């Protein structure tokens, strides 16, 4: 009798232990549909990119990109939940499947792409140094001996500093923080002479965190575009397609003059290609989505230009130029592959 019980307990243990292995076989899209919402990895609060406002609603271009994927699957931008992630936790969160999509100022790199699946670049950023005007810095050489607040976790801007030291033969000091908000706040408190981070984050910090934005100056280290991308777990090609083309839809809509206000109208009166993409019979079938999925994204969120303007551009305190994030025809790097 005892023996029988023990065996039963073992069998249960084995079954319990192996069950998660079986559940992994379920695809990300199936998991999302079953759950009823998309789980999006966000930052711990970077203005203009992803930051919860006073009512707890996530605002920012990174958050809106996540919403586009949610609209594609569910036709509803509210079917999303955000997980604020520290820099060190963001990649493991994708690898373990805790989140379905990471849209959080993550630079697309070789080693990271081998660990997760980068889908597309959503912002081309460059590293920028934020410093106080009172320091009277004219050239990079004037930073000799200065203390920089940097982030150890992400690391790319910090590597730029090392390169800058080598190139200009100056010595910099560093205070290394775990996440960008800590480094930013330490700079604002006067712990450091300068703060180095992604250009958009630096502009956001100056515009919304600094008590007096006019005291601070921004300078970029080099003009090379740094792609900040969206990443998903490996192993579900369908989810990859949905996220990737949800992003391309934003560029396509801007290029074709489709906006939140006129999308419904354009779906009826636009040219043949516009009418097809905005909901022709069978258009969503290749991705297993609703035929009106692109229309839904644009009516609920707007095109890339609208998303940019309200989060980082004219409609925001940052008032950032589009720069490299403009469409190809305006001298930027953004374009959508053909929708044939």
């Amino acid at each position, binding site marked *: 009798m005892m023996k029988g019980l023990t065996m039963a307990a073992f069998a249960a243990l084995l079954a319990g232990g192996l069950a998660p292995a079986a559940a992994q076989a379920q695809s990300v899209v199936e998991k999302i549909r079953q759950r009823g919402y998309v789980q999006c990895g966000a930052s711990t609060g970077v203005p203009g990119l992803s930051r919860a406002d006073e009512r707890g609603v996530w605002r920012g271009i990174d958050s809106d990109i996540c919403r586009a994927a949610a609209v594609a699957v569910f036709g509803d931008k509210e079917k999303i939940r955000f997980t604020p992630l520290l820099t060190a936790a963001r990649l493991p969160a994708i690898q373990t499947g805790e989140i379905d999509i990471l849209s959080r100022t993550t630079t697309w790199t070789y080693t990271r792409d081998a660990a997760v699946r980068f889908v597309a670049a959503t912002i081309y950023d460059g590293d920028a140094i934020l410093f106080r005007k009172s*320091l009277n810095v004219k050239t990079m050489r004037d930073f000799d001996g200065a203390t920089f607040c940097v982030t150890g976790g992400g690391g790319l801007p910090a590597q730029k500093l090392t390169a800058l030291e080598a190139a200009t033969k100056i010595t910099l000091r560093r205070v*290394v923080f775990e996440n960008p908000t800590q480094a930013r706040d330490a700079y604002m408190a006067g712990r450091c*002479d300068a703060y180095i981070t992604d250009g958009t984050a630096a502009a956001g910090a100056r515009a919304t965190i600094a008590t007096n934005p006019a005291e601070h100056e921004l300078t970029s280290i080099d003009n090379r575009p740094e792609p900040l991308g969206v990443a998903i777990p490996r192993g579900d090609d369908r989810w990859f397609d949905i996220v990737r083309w949800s992003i391309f839809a934003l560029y396509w809509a801007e290029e074709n003059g489709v906006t939140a206000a006129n999308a419904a109208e354009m779906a009826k009166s636009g040219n043949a290609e516009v009418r097809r993409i905005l909901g022709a019979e069978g258009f969503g079938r290749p991705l297993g989505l609703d035929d009106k999925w692109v229309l839904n994204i644009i009516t609920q969120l707007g095109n890339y230009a609208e998303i940019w303007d309200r989060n980082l551009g004219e409609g925001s305190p940052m008032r950032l130029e589009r720069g490299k994030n403009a469409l190809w025809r305006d001298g930027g790097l953004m374009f959508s592959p053909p929708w044939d």
Partner: protein
Amino acid sequence: MKFLRDRRVRNWTIQFLVIAGMAAVFAVIAVTTVTNLRLRGIPLGFEFLSMPSGMPIAEALISYTPASPYSRAILVGVLNTVVVSAIVIVASSVLGLFLGIMRLSGNPAIAGIARVWVEIARNTPLIVILLFVYGLWSVMPGVAGAFEPVPGVFVSQRGVALPAISADIGVAPIAGAVFALLAALIGASRIAWTIQMRTGKRPPLVAGVSMLAFGLAIGAYAFGWLDIRVEWPAKRRFNFAGGSEISPEFATLIVGLVIYTTGFIGEIARSGILTVKKGYSEAAASLGMRRGQTLRLIVVPLALRVAVPPLNSQYINVVKNSTLAIAVGYQEFFTIAGTMINRTSHAIEGIVLILATYLAVNLALSAAMNWYNRRIALVER
């Protein structure tokens, strides 16, 4: 089925089943993990440790650059953790002993101060103490208006700048001199004790050896055999240059941990002292011992017997609490390992490394404390 009634057989069978069951659980976890990792295309292995880390570390005790491998970064982190823990353990043990004595003081002001300290330390989360202390640095003056409490010492938002003393002597002669001095002091103390046992008078041998060593050092300096230089910190455009420096992050971590740990050790010291019966102190007093002597020779050694086991757990807590350095920007082992995980995506190996390292450090600490505990335990005859 008769053998089942044999108690020894039954005991062994149950033990075997429990151990086999636990082994099976761990095996299932391991197999599931490895299978799932393979499914997701996540490679396992520690080869990444030899890759260049590329991560900046602000404070390292050994030479380190971002071009150094991850293993070197980890070593820098472990050393930082050990140094912080060691300083905090020594400082809060000394302060804690005084705090415990203060709490038992008949003077209500002294006992009150000690009580306030203990209550603050015990009822405030450590992270709040750390963030509070770190916040104090932002109200310090900038480098230009640095506050100079003692000539050559500057306190500013950038930390504490101190004069540095450097001597052009190798490490070996210094280590040799320190070792010789220690040996001489221990020898002198032994001889003094033997003489005291025989004659009842303790010759001042230890003080003699100390003065001799001090005299030798002064003499060597006066004759120019020792090349000792003092480097003073100087104000530059952004920071102090020259001299040595205590960063706000390091200072915050030490001060915060000491405030917190001292509160707990103070209570351990108080409980230890309270277990020493009043009769012992009275007996010591009737033998003509002064109050300080009674405390040092009778009360504290007896109190230690009670205090050492709980002290052991406090010391281990110090090592674990030092991981909160992450909140104030000081890079110790845990922070560096976290960054490594983020950069390499080797989360499982990283966590294993973190667990193994803290286990090793704390087991070593525990072993030392247990050895000490056995040494001072009451010898029963």
